[in-house]
């Protein structure tokens, strides 16, 4: 519903009670990213660890959620098991509309249940069901069982974790409605630490529309732009997978643990074009998004003699094709789908999982570890070993996998091999585009390629002016903070210009928010950095491993002097952004 205060459902799993709180702050914190940060500041304890039961797990939507197309994302805020600091992860599926129609701006979960449980919330219910029988079950089995246990089919969102989240992996994801994820930085383990196997959000309320004609007019302008222009077609057509061949051609696609940035012999087998031609089964969409960027591939596996087959459906995107494909040396999309399926089952983040195994493969090649650690042979391009390793990673079978599941650098420190750990704040995203991206991902707030446009900046010739580039990062982040507070899909950033967001807000009666947008963006940005610094971030200490200095892109070798200048300039600027207010 349209309201100025934030309406928050606060669930305490320890005492099994929930209550509604109304909080002011809309004009400064908007919703989404801003609201999650505001709630973490209020309910989180920067001095306690990520697995402390009192730490909040936050899911927040924004003022435009459900009212406009592509306003289809939820922001998850939590203390990350990866780096122990405040983190944010975004996902779509049905989660955002489910929260909207459950009539809450955010769901905040604190405490720890005495036994594994499932939380179900809606506009008129709150229920905590004991579910010890689900503990240890993989993501697929859990999903099947939940569908029968929970109310509201079609108009609910189901968030669940797999073994990785139960076992405290630093990069366990939360699976959202089967094909989407709160992927990065370990939100799945925060659920696990709360003994919370799954959350159902049932969207069972409906609301009156805003008075007047402005809303209908604004809706149609946006809808037409989204569906009738070519603006969104790249996401619709090949999907993000369309970038795979393009990045390879630019010598910017990481192959075999970033030992190469292009592989002309293999690229054809994993390109977005190849996936669409041979593997694409159908598309799906987040609720409220007519673009339908989700691409679902078809995996057919022979499991027994006499032509006994089973089939599975696996969502693919650019990122898993990179992390479980090129990064692991595959030139066959079907094999990559098989690994995506295995990662999905364990509830691991696909990017971190793939990049961690790429490091392990090279470490094994170099003799830093042996099969006594990996328990299975690992070799680039060989799927069976990786499938076994993914199970070990989810289960944290031995000391080696336990450390690797805490982050590639954790294992790399123990077994040596930090130089070739492809970690930029977390296991890298798939853009070996150059200095700008490496520095951006190593230092940016989410350590995500979506924090700034650095990877596309790298793809054009640019002057090496560190101060200018850093100013660009900071400005870009503030404007993305606005969009991720609405909460819009970042793919829609071309449609939702600042003017358009203002129109949309005004049409819903949020004049105050509309008038304060850019100031709010900057305030949210600063609050997020303050939270990270309060929880331990020192941007000056961020490292870029040696492997990145060895990369050759379309521009030639990396300019390490410039990369270091840029790293220092950005880190210094972040220190300013995260400075506590009043301490000038």
């Amino acid at each position, binding site marked *: 519903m349209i309201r100025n205060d934030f309406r928050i459902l606060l669930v305490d799993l320890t005492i099994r009670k929930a209550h509604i709180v109304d909080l002011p702050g809309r004009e400064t914190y908007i919703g989404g990213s801003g609201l999650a940060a505001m709630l973490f500041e209020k309910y989180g304890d920067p001095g306690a660890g990520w697995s402390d039961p009192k730490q909040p797990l936050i899911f927040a939507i924004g003022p435009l959620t*459900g*009212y406009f*197309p592509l306003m289809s994302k939820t922001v998850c805020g939590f203390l990350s098991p990866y780096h122990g600091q405040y983190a944010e992860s975004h996902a779509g599926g049905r989660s955002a*509309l489910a929260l*909207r*129609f459950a009539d809450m701006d955010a769901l905040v979960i604190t405490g720890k249940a005495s036994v594994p449980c499932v939380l179900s919330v809606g*506009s*008129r219910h709150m229920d905590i069901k004991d579910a010890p029988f689900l503990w240890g079950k993989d993501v697929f089995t859990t*999903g*099947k069982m939940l*569908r029968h246990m929970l109310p509201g*089919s*079609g*108009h609910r969102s189901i968030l669940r974790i797999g073994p990785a989240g139960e076992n405290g992996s630093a990069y366990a994801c939360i699976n959202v*409605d*089967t*094909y989407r994820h709160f992927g990065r930085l370990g939100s799945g383990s925060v659920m696990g630490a709360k003994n919370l196997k799954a959350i159902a959000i049932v*969207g*069972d*309320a*409906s*609301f*009156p*529309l805003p008075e007047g004609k402005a809303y*209908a007019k604004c*809706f149609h302008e946006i*809808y037409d732009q989204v*569906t009738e222009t070519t603006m969104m077609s790249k996401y619709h057509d090949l999907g993000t997978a369309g970038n795979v061949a393009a990045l390879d051609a630019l010598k910017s696609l990481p192959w075999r643990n970033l030992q190469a940035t292009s592989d002309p012999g293999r690229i054809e087998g994993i390109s977005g074009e190849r996936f669409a031609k041979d593997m694409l089964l*159908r*598309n*799906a*969409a*987040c*609720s*409220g*998004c*007519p*673009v*339908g960027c*989700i691409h679902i591939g078809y995996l057919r596996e022979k499991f027994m003699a006499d032509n006994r087959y089973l089939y599975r*459906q696996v969502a693919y995107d650019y990122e898993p094709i990179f992390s479980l494909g090129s990064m692991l040396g595959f030139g066959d999309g079907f094999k990559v789908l098989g690994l995506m399926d295995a990662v999905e089952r364990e509830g691991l983040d696909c990017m971190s999982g793939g990049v961690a195994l790429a490091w392990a493969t090279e470490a094994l090649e170099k003799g830093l570890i042996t099969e006594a650690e990996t328990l299975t042979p690992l070799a680039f391009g060989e799927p069976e070993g990786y499938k076994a390793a993914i199970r070990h990673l989810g289960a944290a079978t031995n000391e080696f996998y336990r450390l690797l599941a805490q982050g590639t650098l954790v294992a790399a420190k123990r077994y040596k091999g930090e130089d070739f750990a492809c970690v930029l704040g977390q296991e890298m995203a798939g853009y070996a585009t150059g200095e700008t991206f490496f520095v951006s991902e190593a230092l940016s707030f989410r350590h995500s390629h979506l924090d700034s446009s650095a990877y596309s900046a790298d793809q054009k010739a640019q002057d090496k002016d560190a101060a200018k580039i850093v100013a660009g990062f900071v400005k870009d982040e503030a404007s993305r903070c606005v969009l991720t507070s609405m909460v819009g899909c970042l793919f829609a950033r071309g449609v939702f210009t600042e003017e358009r967001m203002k129109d949309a807000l005004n049409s819903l009666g949020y004049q105050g928010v509309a008038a304060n947008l850019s100031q709010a963006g900057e305030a949210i940005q600063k609050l997020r950095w303050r939270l990270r610094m309060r929880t331990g971030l020192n941007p000056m200490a961020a490292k870029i491993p040696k492997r990145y200095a060895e990369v050759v892109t379309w521009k030639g070798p990396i300019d390490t002097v410039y990369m270091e200048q840029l790293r220092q300039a950005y880190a210094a600027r972040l220190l300013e952004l995260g400075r506590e207010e009043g301490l000038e």
Partner: protein
Amino acid sequence: MKTFFASRMERCIGCQSCSLACARLVHKRLSWHTAGIRIGSSGGISTGFEARVCLACDPPPCAAACPTGSLSPRKEDGGVKQDRKLCIRCGKCVAACPVNAIVVDELNNPYMCLHCGRCVPYCPHDCLELAVKGQANFVQEVAE
């Protein structure tokens, strides 16, 4: 009379633009549920989507069950007209519909498809159509 059909649901991506459009344009609500058409996954999301929507029974049992005349048969081709002013929210139509095409909100107001076709242009995959009965789904579009 033209009738609304969810004819090509194999193409559906589950975006729920249709339900949102029906709620917004016909019922003046923001909702993905209190709408003439509702989208659910058919037996778990991995097997695709299905639509809950009126099949335009002729004669319509929901209208027969309605004690006040709030629902009455359309002039021809089945389905119903609705006069909300007459509705006493007894829920008899909901029970009478053989395919669960009528949904109620928290105040027990019933919602069903009135075969107006306003949701049709919102479907990005052309799953929906307003057609003369017996002629629906005969146009199979060929992809380029």
